[in-house]
């Protein structure tokens, strides 16, 4: 009970600050926390990246294994995106099989990658119908202080960008870089009492009436959308968020993701 009261207190705190034009960490409404991106930090992974979004920290590792294609796409490799919300990262996370939060996280990130055609799965085919590369993209959350999706998606693209395909380990010729064809960026915004703020903290997520993730590409098109939360949104708010999302994605892309030539 005591905990529930604290929950309400924190929500009110966030709302009151916003109504006075302020956020709990002093940011502007459309300002991201400081972003830090480190690549290639796990030498056991074929590609990896660690993203800090303020105090939120997410590690993404990519592994490649040789396996069988799906029967209905014999000429394509397989991309499997997985997220683990390990209890190390938050007092609210529990050990156990994937739940709806970790599944949604993985699927939204995955959707952006597919929608933007980041990876040409046909390039991951080794032998039609027999052998293909299975690309595992594992999102490992280390510290959850809000907005996991944006951190995970940025880490995912960065990890994909530094993959070397380990052909030689599997007796194939010559390791090679994986080609990355686009750089989708996820931008998550919440609506709190009619105000839109980007890159929400945990407290802002809890206080939010709505949350929308907008995934957009280098050319400004969309490769994914996901609304979450138990409230309705107006058309105008959504359209505004989509515009804002595309704009912020451009800033992040510019700064952290070299556009593939």
């Amino acid at each position, binding site marked *: 009970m005591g905990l529930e009261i604290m929950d309400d207190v924190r929500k009110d705190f966030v709302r009151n600050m916003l109504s006075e034009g302020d956020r709990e960490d002093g940011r502007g409404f459309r300002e991201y926390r400081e972003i830090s991106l480190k690549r290639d930090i796990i030498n056991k992974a074929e590609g990896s990246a660690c993203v800090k979004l303020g105090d939120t920290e997410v590690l993404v590792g990519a592994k490649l294994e040789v396996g069988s294609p799906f029967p209905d796409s014999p000429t394509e490799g397989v991309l499997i995106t997985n997220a683990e919300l390990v209890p190390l990262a938050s007092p609210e996370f529990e050990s156990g099989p994937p739940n709806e939060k970790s599944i949604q996280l993985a699927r939204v990130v995955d959707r952006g990658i597919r929608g933007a055609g980041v990876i040409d799965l046909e390039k991951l085919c080794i032998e039609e119908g027999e052998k293909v590369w299975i690309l595992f993209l594992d999102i490992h959350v280390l510290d959850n202080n809000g907005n996991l999706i944006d951190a995970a998606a940025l880490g995912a693209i960065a990890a994909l960008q530094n993959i070397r395909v380990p052909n030689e380990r599997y007796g194939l010729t010559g390791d090679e870089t994986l080609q990355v064809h686009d750089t989708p960026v996820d931008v998550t915004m919440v609506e709190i009492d009619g105000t839109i703020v980007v890159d929400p903290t945990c407290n802002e997520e809890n206080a939010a009436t709505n949350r929308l993730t907008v995934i957009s590409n280098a050319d*400004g098109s*969309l490769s*994914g959308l996901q609304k979450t939360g138990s*409230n309705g949104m107006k058309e105008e708010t959504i359209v505004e968020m989509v515009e804002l999302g595309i704009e912020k994605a451009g800033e992040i892309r510019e700064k952290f993701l070299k556009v593939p030539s």
Partner: protein
Amino acid sequence: MKKEGEIEFIKDGKRVDGRRFDELRNIKIEVGVLKRADGSCYFELGDNKVLAAVYGPREMHPRHAQDAKMAVVKFRYNMAPFSVDDRKRPGPDRRSVEISKVSREALDPVILREYYPKAAIEVYVEILQSDAGTRTAGINAASVALADAGVPMRDLVSSVAVGKVGGEIVLDLNAVEDNYGEADMPIAMIARRNTITALQMDGNLTKDEFEKGLKLAMKACQQIYELQRAALIGRYNKDESAKSKDRGT
């Protein structure tokens, strides 16, 4: 989304199944089709066949998951093993877990959950036959089943997908359009309030296409709302002898 390629999606301004760009598939709604459930609805959308049942408000188990302020809505989207081309293994997979979450959040805004603190309102959707659009059909069915169960609601929720095929923004994708088209965007809304309660998109759309699609979907939700409403009215005008109201039996 995937390989468009050879398929000729649009011919003479019509789609592969002969529909106009802004045309829904056939919809059939039956209310109160199940005896044991407190409310139920059978919903056909083209070749999709979907059944929804509602139980509750009733006691929430396990207790530690109760919410002291309002009812918890449980939503389970489930595909029958024979509802798809390749048999689906029974039990939840990642896709159905996500759809269940999105569908629950699509309905939450209209349910007067605060009337039933600590209770559970359980919504079960079974996909009996699948042909693209099952999540929207499930939300439509669930919304009607909630009303049939007498769960207090602000309004109905209506749902439909739009997408992009052959370069055109079209309404309510069928299976071919969904599998080989360029984008799919399901939405749910409270039609009479123009309030959007679910929105997902995958594939690729420009901002303008997105806005065009959103308007198209919102308009179609109004149509669906009228069908849902008509089905509920039909149900309560008809002699109810077929379905005894004493649920205790």
